[in-house]
Structure formats: C-alpha cells, structure tokens
C-alpha cells in the first residue's frame, strides 16, 4: 500500500520514538510470523517455501550435479527471480550477487566433496512470488531451510579416484542429508535511534537507513553493509545505531536458528 506524505511522517515519528511503536505492534527485535514448508518438490534435491504474514512468498529449490572440482571453481550457483522486478534491474542483480557471494564463500566446500576428483555443484534457484518488503531476510530463511532439507545421492563407489578413471556411482534410492552450516542474512531498519528487525514494507518506506548483517557460525560476519530501503527518508545514521544492529542480531540470531532448525 502506498502511504501519503502525512502518513509516512506520522509513521516515521512513531518508529523513531522511544520505545518504537511499530504499526503491527511488534517489539523492535520481533520477527513477523512465517510459515515454512520443506521438501515438497520431487524433482529437486531440496526445496522450501516460506510465506510471511504480509503475503510475501518465496520458493527455493536446490539441485545438484556432479562436477570435477579441479575444473569448476564455483560449487554454488544462485539464481534469483523476483516477481514484479525485471531480471536485469539493479535490485534483483544486487540481491543475486550478494547471495551467491555469501553462499559460495561461506558454505564449506568440503561438505560438497564427493571423491578426490569430484564434487557436488549446487544450483540454488530462488523465486520470490510476491514481495512487499525487502525480501533478503525471507530469501535467506528459505535458502537456509532448503539447504537443510537437501538430500544428496549416496556414493557407493570408492572415494579415492585419483588413479582410477571412473565416474562416481550412486545408490539407487538411498540419500545422504547435506550437512552444512548455512549463513543467514538479516535486514534491519534504522529509524532515528531505533533499530528494527525484519522491517515490514511500510516500515521500510520511512526508515532512515537499512543495514544488512550476515550471521554464520555463531557470529555476525561480513558482508555487513548499509542498504537503501527507500528514497525519501534515507539519511545518515549514527555509528552507534550500526553497533546496535549488530548487537541485536547477536541476540536474536540464535533463536531464529533454533526456530528454523526445529522444522
């Protein structure tokens, strides 16, 4: 919904007040409820669908392919498609590039290692069916649950194939669960001096700035960067707010992981 100038100004004031009054009554560190479905696409190795309370819906499918890791450098390929945005728009390409960089540098390559010569290459396809707020957090939740539900074919041939010229062979129906630590990406909105986690679309419209924080292996990690959530209210923020947002992620991320892991 497009807000008028007056509505935006009112909303900004309430979000910047202490404590922040969020339009849906959430606390500053509270996420919107989401529904997660996993492992429902028969043709892919792992899949998930995440539906947020505002109707944002994100589908992720993970497929794998056996490649010679001496030849193929990138073992993770991410493709992002966001309904309502052109594929060549800066918004979509920026999100795709951020995701593929995070996943290809932070996913442990040894988990994909099959034999001494071959590895699995993961193709992660992200489809955002409808998005109202910045979809990065939701995409990252979906990628997380998709990768954690990924089943890879079980190897039955020898894993030492340096000398023997043979292709890996797999068990007819047995799978092995992919066990990898997946980074999570959080977007936060900064309004005045307040930091708000998981901003809804109306909150993003009046945020002074946004910040992206990545969480992996139990700590906040790069990339950490500012994100423009809108064009009207964007302004400078105090360094303390940036510190606060990282602190907030350090608090909430373990709980989020626990919730996502329980699926």
């Amino acid at each position: 919904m497009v807000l008028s100038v007056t509505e935006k100004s009112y909303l900004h004031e309430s979000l910047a007040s202490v404590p922040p009054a969020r339009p849906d009554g959430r606390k500053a560190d509270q996420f919107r409820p989401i529904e997660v479905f996993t492992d429902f696409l028969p043709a892919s190795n792992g899949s998930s669908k995440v539906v947020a309370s505002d109707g944002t819906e994100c589908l992720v499918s993970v497929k794998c392919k056996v490649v010679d890791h001496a030849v193929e450098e990138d073992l993770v390929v991410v493709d992002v498609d966001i309904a309502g945005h052109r594929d060549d728009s800066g918004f979509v390409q920026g999100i795709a590039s951020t995701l593929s960089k995070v996943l290809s540098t932070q996913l442990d390559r040894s988990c994909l290692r099959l034999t001494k010569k071959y590895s699995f290459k993961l193709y992660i396809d992200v489809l955002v069916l409808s998005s109202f707020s910045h979809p990065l957090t939701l995409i990252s939740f979906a990628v997380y649950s998709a990768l954690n539900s990924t089943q890879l074919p079980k190897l039955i041939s020898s894993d030492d194939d340096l000398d023997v010229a043979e292709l890996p062979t797999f068990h007819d129906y047995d799978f092995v669960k992919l066990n990898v630590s997946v980074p999570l990406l959080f977007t936060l909105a900064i309004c005045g001096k307040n930091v708000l986690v998981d901003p809804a679309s109306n909150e993003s419209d009046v945020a002074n700035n946004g910040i992206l924080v990545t969480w992996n292996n139990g700590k906040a990690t790069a990339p950490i960067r500012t994100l423009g959530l809108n064009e009207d209210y964007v302004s400078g923020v105090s360094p303390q707010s940036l510190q606060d947002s990282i602190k907030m992620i350090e608090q909430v991320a373990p709980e989020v992981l626990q919730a996502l892991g329980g699926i």
Partner: protein
Amino acid sequence: MNITDRRRILGPSNAKPLVFERLESSEQAAQPPQEKNNENESMYIKNGLVSNANGSSYLELKRGESSEQCTILLSSVYGPRPSRGAFSSKASLSVQFKEVTIEKIPSGELKEICNFLSNIFSAVINLERYPKSGIDIFLSLIKNPITSDEANLEPIIAACVNGITLALADAGIEIFDTVSAGTYKRNVVAFSKNGTEVVGLWKDKEDDTANDILSVIENCRGNYLQNRKGIIEYLIRSKNADI
C-alpha cells in the same frame, strides 16, 4: 586505391585537412598536483574535464610509490534533466559504473556497488530541489589497482564516493554535505556531518576486525577526514582560481 567512397560527399579533390594550432599546456603549469603524504597515500583531483557533462571530476589515488597501486576514476554528472513518466516531486538518481579498460569486476558486484552508491547519494543530494527530473552519474574506472585475481573493491568504492561528491560540487547540484569515504583494512565507511553520521558502510570480507564495528568506523574516520580535507581544499582553491 581506386575505390571511391560514393556514400559520402567527398568535397573537392584538392581539399586539405584542417590543422589546428597546438594548445598551450597552460593548465598543467597552473595546477600543480596536489600531494598529501599520509600513510603514503596521495590524491590528485581535477574537476570539469568532461566538457559536455554538467559536472565532472578526475581522481587519481596513489598508494605507495609504485604506479601499479593507482586508482584512476572519472566521474561525470548529467542533469537534472526531464524525466518521463509519472509525476515525481523529487529527482531520481541513477549511478552507472563502468570499467573502461579490462573488465575485472563481475557485473553482479558492479550492480551492488551502484546500488550502494545511489543509496548514499540519495541521502546526500537535495533531491527535493529538482522535481520531475533525473540526475545521472556515470563512473568510468580508468585504472584499476587490482593486480591479482582477488577483487579488492574497497579502494575503488571509496574513490567513487569521493569522485561523485566532487563531480556534484562541480555541477553545482545541491548536496547536504561534502560526503567522503574512508577505508580501513577491508572496510569502507562513508561519512557526513564531519564524521558524526555514517551514510554508507561496506564490509564485504571477513577480517580480524570481527565484531567491533565502532573501532572500524573510528579507523575509517581518520582516513575520511583526510580525504574530505583534500576535497574541500581543492574546491575552495579552484573556486578562488576561477575569479
């Protein structure tokens, strides 16, 4: 060669090409390179080189003595020009980044840089002053300090922020502050209001500065103040030289 070009009017057969008198290289004498040696970093600025742009800046950043570690960036600002489509009470901003020599940066990362920069400058340009119009910023990276395969984008991003600020000031487009960026290790922070506010933070690679973002910002601020001083000195001096 007996082939005559029949698609064009060639003019009389005894025509001679135009020869222009050589221009005096007075500019070089008037403008000594601006050297500031701190941590072996030096910056050379020249505004207004692109004659058909509304404002432009040429930035040369050197780290150390070798010419290898040199970033050369040309930024030009076009507009405000009329935008078509729906009415908007503010100007829209677009940032395009291009490597004019060998393209080493993946296109996805270029888009990320452009998003990051347009985010910074949306906060900085007084967009309300320019209704129904668009401001286009074009960045041409003439020399890239990247020598190895690993992309080290941070100095480039910092140069982009400084270059755009200079170009905007040259164009006379209203900006709220002389925004500049400072780097520290693998972090870039763009500041405004004399370093009390952060307008952009870019931390892409994990380094030993882990979770202490405040100390990162503090370290970038030193570099920022130095860059900002250079920019302001140049702006004031070139303004006084014009009169």
